């Protein structure tokens, strides 16, 4: 893996990140929005691991960050699902365009 330059890894993670951004803005379904958020988080994880491996091989900081991000992502997804289910019960739809009562 040493021949793969750091830049390529970073390209991978950035591309994944902005794919996630695009998906988050564009998808009309709450669950698919959640999936885009997962893409975002994973791209960040790749970034951390890459930097840890290439720039700071004597430390484990990147690994720990990744660990914590995975843990927090799990908690967040479960909470998000709970909220989506609640919204589904209230509005009978999970189309995010329909859920706009908190407006002017």
């Amino acid at each position, binding site marked *: 893996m040493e021949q793969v330059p750091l830049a390529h890894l970073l390209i991978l993670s950035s591309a994944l*990140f902005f794919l996630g951004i695009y998906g988050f803005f564009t998808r009309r379904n709450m669950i698919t929005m959640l*999936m885009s958020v997962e893409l975002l988080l994973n791209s960040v994880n790749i970034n951390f691991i890459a930097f840890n491996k290439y720039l700071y091989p004597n430390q484990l900081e990147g690994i720990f960050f990744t660990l914590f991000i995975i843990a927090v992502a799990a908690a967040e997804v479960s909470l998000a699902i709970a909220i989506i289910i609640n919204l589904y019960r209230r509005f009978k739809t999970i189309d995010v365009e329909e859920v706009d009562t908190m407006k002017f």
Partner: protein
Amino acid sequence: MSASTIIFYIVSALVLVFGAMSVFTRMIFRAAIYLLFSLIGIAGIYIMMNMDFIAALQVLIYVGGIIVLIIFSIFLTHQSGDKLPKPLFKRIVVAAGMAAFGLILTLSVFYQTAFKATTEMGVDHSARNIGRQMLDYHHHGYVYPFEIVSFLLLAALVGCIVIAVKIKDK
């Protein structure tokens, strides 16, 4: 070019392709499955970087937990069969524009930065070292965030139950 680099490029291409398909597809179940493959691909990248512990964690938690959760929620909200509506054209344009712009900005920053590697000796990234470091409360120890994350998980658990509980009307 050694074989590992070629494999790396193939796996990363797979990750990107599946990620894109997950974002673009109009069937919700398929999106979940594409995401699943994308995440497995990412686990593969971790393994190629010798971070097996993280790779294992990725598969265990992300693939085995989170994707399953998402699939459950798709079933619970009766969404599995229908096609998702297409978003507005204006929305697509604006979002694509912003994403592309952000990407170009980030890449330009990357290319202009000279990343300097440290010259110290590397540490083994085995699970044993990770465990030791995590429970260490000296310098570079992570026992404190570990405890906090456990609190967070407890709170998330209780919160999920509270939010999703069905109140029976009398």
